[in-house]
């Protein structure tokens, strides 16, 4: 291997890791909801779409970036509150399957509302961060990395550290874990289900907005964004459905392995394996470590 090959390998790896961070961001929204409701939130992709489309819509109405951002955050908090009031509250103490179906319904509602309000055209989102390799970094190390990727990495890092502290150290975090485990028990010790759910769904909405903005800046704000939620599935299987650090590590694994697989194994299959390589990896995990890297091991009595 000569120097050029090593540099090329590093470049693919770094590019993959940073793309992985973007997957982690989407998966983070799923984990939040899963922790509080033990439910896979089918509406997460729709929330990403709804959030970023609204953001772009507000900017088109003439708001500048720094006004549109808090307005969209406020909107996502409203969505979280409305979800609690009209979807979750009527379903207190119902089975997890019922909630799962409710999230599918919610997905349709959000997709419909977003397109009704803002139309169906593909929009450009310019965050002012160019999606081109940084020249100084390329000159210095010979590796090409996009500024957008680095921004995504930093943003994801900040979100994860904040959420990790929230879950493991605070009263709200404990309340959240308690609510996920048993509604009745949580109520009996005075945990307000209402507030916990509102908080979680609003937070998931804000995470969806951040993920949507970064993805939208890369590939345009369009209905297809809902599809990236599917990429979050292998990330969650590998990381474990309940672990915040887990989705980050798993996102990095998925991002790096899909790019490396594409470049080094892809040619043997005629290319294009990036799309399904992560799912193969997820299947391997399901066979040998179904709880994921950081998930909770399930014990079932028979």
């Amino acid at each position, binding site marked *: 291997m000569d120097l050029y090959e090593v540099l090329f390998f590093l470049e693919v790896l770094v590019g993959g890791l940073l793309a992985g961070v973007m997957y982690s961001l989407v998966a983070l929204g799923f984990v939040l909801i899963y922790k509080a409701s033990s439910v896979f939130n089918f509406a997460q992709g729709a929330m990403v779409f709804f959030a970023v489309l609204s953001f772009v819509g507000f900017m088109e109405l003439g708001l500048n970036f720094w006004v549109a951002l808090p307005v969209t955050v406020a909107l996502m908090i409203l969505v979280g509150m409305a979800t609690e009031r009209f979807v979750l509250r009527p379903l207190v103490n119902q089975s997890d399957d019922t909630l799962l179906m409710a999230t599918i319904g919610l997905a349709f509602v959000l997709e419909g509302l977003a397109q009704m309000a803002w139309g169906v055209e593909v929009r450009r989102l310019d965050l002012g961060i160019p999606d081109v390799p940084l020249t100084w970094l390329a000159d210095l190390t010979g590796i090409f990395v996009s500024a957008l990727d680095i921004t995504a990495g930093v943003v994801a890092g900040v979100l994860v550290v904040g959420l990790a*502290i929230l879950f493991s150290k605070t009263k709200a975090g404990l309340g959240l874990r308690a609510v996920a*485990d048993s509604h009745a*028990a949580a109520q*009996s*010790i*005075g*945990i307000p289900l209402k507030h916990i759910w509102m908080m979680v769904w609003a937070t998931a909405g804000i995470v969806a907005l951040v993920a949507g903005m970064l993805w939208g800046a890369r590939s345009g704000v369009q209905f297809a964004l809902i599809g990236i939620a599917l990429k979050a599935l292998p990330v969650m299987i590998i990381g474990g459905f309940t672990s915040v650090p887990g989705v980050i590590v798993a996102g990095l694994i998925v991002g790096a392995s899909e790019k490396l697989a594409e470049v080094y194994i892809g040619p043997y299959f005629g290319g294009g394996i990036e799309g399904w390589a992560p799912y193969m990896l997820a299947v391997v995990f399901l066979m040998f470590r179904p709880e994921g890297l950081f998930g*909770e091991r399930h014990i079932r009595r028979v």
Partner: protein
Amino acid sequence: MNVISETHFSERAFPIAGPVLELENISLRFGGVHALTDISFNVLEHEVRAIIGPNGAGKSSMLNVIGGLYTPQEGRIRFDSELLSGMTPGRAAKLGIGRTFQNIALFKRMTVLENIMAGRKLFNHATFLEVALQLPRARREEIEDREKAEEIIETLEIQHIRKTQVSRLPYGLQKRVELGRALAAEPKILLLDEPMAGMNVEEKQDMCRFIIDVNDHYGTTIVLIEHDMGVVMDISDRVVVLDYGKKIGDGTPDDVRSNQNVIDAYLGVAH
């Protein structure tokens, strides 16, 4: 079952005082089903009060009305002489009404210690920042919580399983952990929904002892539902008897035992 020390009824550290909970003319309906009809009784501070009755008599409904899970269509509830309206489970918890459930409701993915700590933590005042920075109030509360949790673990004799995940424990021990979690909030009143259901004789004796200990040591007022008449008569100060959603008896275990309506309800009566 001779598990109650002789001193429990004679020389109590917390003698029975005035009414702490008063239920006045409570009626609860689910559609056309009359779950509770015009029920009134009171609970005195520091007493052990039992609610008994055949299956479907409305015992759990009664407990759920007190705990704020059900809102009765008619009637009033007074707590510490104060009229309560619009009771919710959260409100009940804040007022100091703790409870356990007929079908155990624990945080199964947490350990025993975490469950008991959870019962307490939600009443803490330290904010996110204080906890993150470990400021004095956060540290003090953490230490208090740990001490209280350890005290409860010792009282209930569950030291050996304190770090065990709850879902791994056998039924009898889970019931004990649930009692521990309710105690952690230092409730004034503890509602126990069939604390001994599904237990063997030895487990029942243990549970009786713990209930009496809790009442003796902390002065906690206890309202419990139980099927096992022997147990009820042994540990209760007063008993209220329900049948088909109506109150058919109320008094000391001896009064109730000799009440003809109660005997008929339990043994059946020739029509």
